[in-house]
C-alpha cells in the first residue's frame, strides 16, 4: 500500500486567513483526491487533483475557496482560503495506486477556525 504523509496534522487558524495542506506519497500514483470530513460525518469529495492542470471540483466546491495544485505524480496541496468557522473540519487526501484500483487515505488534517 502507498504511504501518505499529510501536513500539518492539525492547525488552529483565525477567521479570514488561509491554510495550505500538503500531501506527499512515497510512490507514483495515478490519481489524487481531496476529501472533507466534518466531525462525526461522512467523507465528502472536494476535488480531483490533476497533474499539471486545473483540479476538477465537485458540486458545491469552487477553486477560489479551495485552490489545489499537483505539480507531479507524488505531491499535491489543498488551500482552504478565507477561513470561517464553518470550514472547521478534517481534510484528507487520498491516492489511487498505479497497479490497483484501491484508494488509500492520509491521516488527515484537523482544522479549527476561531
Amino acid at each position: 500500500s502507498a504511504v501518505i504523509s499529510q501536513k500539518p496534522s492539525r492547525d488552529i487558524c483565525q477567521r479570514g486567513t488561509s491554510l495550505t495542506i500538503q500531501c506527499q506519497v512515497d510512490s507514483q500514483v495515478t490519481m489524487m483526491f481531496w476529501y472533507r470530513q466534518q466531525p462525526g460525518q461522512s467523507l465528502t469529495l472536494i476535488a480531483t487533483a490533476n497533474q499539471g492542470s486545473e483540479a476538477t471540483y465537485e458540486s458545491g466546491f469552487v477553486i477560489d475557496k479551495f485552490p489545489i495544485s499537483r505539480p507531479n505524480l507524488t505531491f499535491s496541496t489543498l488551500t482552504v482560503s478565507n477561513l470561517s468557522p464553518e470550514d472547521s473540519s478534517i481534510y484528507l487526501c487520498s491516492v489511487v495506486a498505479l497497479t490497483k484500483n484501491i484508494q488509500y487515505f492520509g491521516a488527515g488534517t484537523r482544522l479549527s477556525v476561531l
Partner: protein
Amino acid sequence: QQPVQSPQAVILREGEDAVINCSSSKALYSVHWYRQKHGEAPVFLMILLKGGEQKGHDKISASFNEKKQQSSLYLTASQLSYSGTYFCGTEREDRGSTLGRLYFGRGTQLTVWP
C-alpha cells in the same frame, strides 16, 4: 448522489455476526468498503467491481448486486478489533473517465463488546 447505508449503528457481543448494507440510486462501477476508528484515517477493507465475484478475507466478506446497485458487508464471528465506523464508497459508472471519485454513505457505527 450519496449512497444510503443501513443500519446507522450496530451493537454486538464478541462472536456475533453483522451485515451492513449500501445502496445507490445510480449505476455503479465499483463499491469500496472502509473502516475508520476514531481519530484515524479510513482503512481500506475491500473493493467489489462490476462483474466481479464476492470478495472476502478472514471473517469479513462482501457482495455486490449490480442489478440492484446494492452491496453488503458481512462480518462473522466479530472481534473487539472490528469496532469502528464502516463506510461504503461508491464509484459511479456515469462519470466515465473520471473513475476513482468515491461518494460515501453516512457510515455505520459498529461496537463490539466482550
